[in-house]
């Protein structure tokens, strides 16, 4: 029987990892994701998992050991944040190119300076072109569920790509809230066994990973990764449908909250969608037709789903928890590109909010909605919750 417990986002990841029982976890602690390897190491110490836990000396070695264990045929998981993610950066595109289905609990935290341990999406947004799947979660339940689904998505033979499961540092990772857990057996059955295609440890059929491919082959190999990414949406939808069958919980590519008849839509990611949805309810009571579109899958970017949700709107407000200094913020850029490709011109405002963990309150969301309602449209980047 599924059980419900009060838990944090980090512990939800660790609990999913206990149930997934990966062959290898190589991890290095960093705030705010430290609780994940700490909690998981207790499971190892108590003999609750079979995992070989490699307590490496840096994040760079963590992801390097994960990559090597994954090409060796093991099911592999890890977790990190911010500077740890940045230190791993060199290895991310290599892991994607070697088609290693590593599942990664990424707890979003800003990249300094100034040094700051709190949430924004600058760390994972810096990895958006690394060839990994990116899924952003709103709360602890979603984090737990997504960790389990991500194993199936990443390991699917049409995909074979590593996946980030992102949650907001402290806001989600340290917030204790009710989470419903599956039975261990249900998880085991849902994820199945990993069946590696070309294992480095198959000594009778030796393979080489990491060849030098110059001007003559590099491009073709990258093209294959593009193709793998194209398969993600279908596999994601299939896995999410299977997951819904056993849990009743649905996780579409994008979360459409009262967008169907909405004139004005806020586009946002992760935990801040909570404040956005609350504001939608409040403004709807006042007679405004507003909605919230939360982007769950960010890589690959589900452009047609998003266009489908936005196309009837009179105006949109795209809220980024990351800035792209000197250019438009990352989510805003993607949304504009998707609408342009669809031949749709909807007036769009761009807001950056929540950098370095600055709170995003319902009144911040309301400010952005009121700009739309009052037709205060501008291509200029605006800031929510900033003192200027």
């Amino acid at each position, binding site marked *: 029987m599924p059980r419900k417990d009060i838990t944090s986002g980090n512990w939800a990841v660790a609990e999913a990892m206990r149930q997934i029982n990966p062959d290898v976890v190589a991890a290095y602690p960093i705030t705010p994701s430290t609780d994940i390897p700490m909690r998981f190491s207790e499971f190892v110490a108590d003999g609750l998992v079979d995992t070989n836990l490699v307590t490496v000396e840096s994040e760079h070695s963590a992801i390097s050991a994960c990559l090597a264990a*994954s090409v060796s045929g093991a099911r592999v998981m890890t977790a990190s944040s911010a500077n740890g993610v940045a230190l791993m950066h060199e290895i991310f595109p290599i892991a994607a190119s070697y088609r290693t289905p590593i599942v990664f609990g990424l707890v979003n935290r800003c990249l300094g300076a100034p040094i700051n341990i709190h949430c924004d999406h600058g760390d994972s947004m810096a990895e958006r072109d690394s060839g990994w799947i990116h899924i952003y979660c709103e709360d602890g339940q979603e984090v737990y569920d997504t960790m389990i689904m991500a194993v199936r998505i990443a390991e699917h033979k049409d995909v074979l790509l590593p996946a980030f499961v992102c949650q907001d540092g402290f806001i989600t990772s340290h917030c204790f809230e009710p989470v419903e857990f599956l039975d261990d057996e249900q998880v085991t059955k849902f994820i199945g066994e990993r069946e590696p295609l070309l294992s480095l440890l198959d000594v009778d059929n030796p393979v080489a990973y990491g060849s030098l491919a110059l001007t003559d*082959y590099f491009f073709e190999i990258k093209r294959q990764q593009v193709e793998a990414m194209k398969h993600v949406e279908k596999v994601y939808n299939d896995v999410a449908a299977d997951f819904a069958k056993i849990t009743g919980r649905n996780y579409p590519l994008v979360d459409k909250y009262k967008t169907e008849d909405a004139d004005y839509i806020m586009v946002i990611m992760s935990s801040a969608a909570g404040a956005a949805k609350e504001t939608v309810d409040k403004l709807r009571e006042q007679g405004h037709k507003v909605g919230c579109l939360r982007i769950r899958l960010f890589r690959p970017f589900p452009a047609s789903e998003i266009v489908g949700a936005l196309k009837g709107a009179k105006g949109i407000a795209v809220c980024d928890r990351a800035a792209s200094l000197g250019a438009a913020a990352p989510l805003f850029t993607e949304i504009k590109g998707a609408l342009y490709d669809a031949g749709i011109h909807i007036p769009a405002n761009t807001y950056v909010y929540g950098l370095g963990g600055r709170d995003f309150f319902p009144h911040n969301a309301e400010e952005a909605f009121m700009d739309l309602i009052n037709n205060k449209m501008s291509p200029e980047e605006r800031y929510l919750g900033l003192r200027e």
Partner: protein
Amino acid sequence: MAVKLKDLITKERAMRQGHRMCPGCGAPTVVQQALLAVDDPIVITSATGCLEVSTTIYPYNSWGVPFLHSAFENAGANVSGIEAAYVALKKKGKIKKNIKFVAFGGDGGTYDIGLQALSGAAERGHDFTYICYNNQGYMNTGAQRSSATPIGANTSTAPAGKVIPGKIQKPKDLTAIMAAHHIPYVAQTTIFNPMEVIEKVKRAIETPGPAFVNILAPCVLFWRLEPSMQKEICRLAAETRFWPIYEVINGEWKLSYKPKKYVPAEEFLKPQGRFRHLLKGETGKAVIENFQKEIDEEWQYVLKRCGETWEPQA
């Protein structure tokens, strides 16, 4: 059981023909000798470097055994991950065979950028052997200095100029650093006597736990050396005591080679174009004197650690 060279001649090689390394390069000699006497299946990982790029030019590769390369500074972490997967999968019965794990790195990938990953892997006690093919510089990228480059060498980032006579600093003693990790097996050798390398690496690989072997191997191109001099220059490195040959087994230091005669450092320096600027003028003379002094001091250190004395023949 003693290894006999004639028994090894017909053995299948882990690294095969078709690689693109320079004629006379020490790296393939290191690999061939190191892996010749290993009986269990092996899996290789390598840091970025000449060995890696020259043996795996897609769609070809020279390895008859599984091979992984991912980046420059992480061979220690890669071998940790492979071994961790092996231990986990073997426990689950998904792998039946006994497999050995060998990491290769040049001195760039080992002494410098990869030292942290290697140190971590050694401290954690994974069962692997790390072999540094030490050609004393970043040769893959054109002879830049490394922390293994000897005093006075002309390198592309510490060039011999009008004021500065090549590299000023002495190399770090990586073999002793690895011995200080108190891992079960550490050795330092070079490639003028095949049995010397074959036996040491066999011991390293058969020893459970981490093992490290530092093998001096010339880059004939950037040592500015005749390709036919590969073996001879390594013999001179040992005879001049520039490169002491020893092993550290469970903390016990054992000297493997004691030159019979005193051979001055110049004998090692003279055949190599990278030291040519030292062989003329007062500055060069002073550098060579310093080079000799460092050799003598390091040799005394190794003798002391090994509990040995040395009385060269007149």
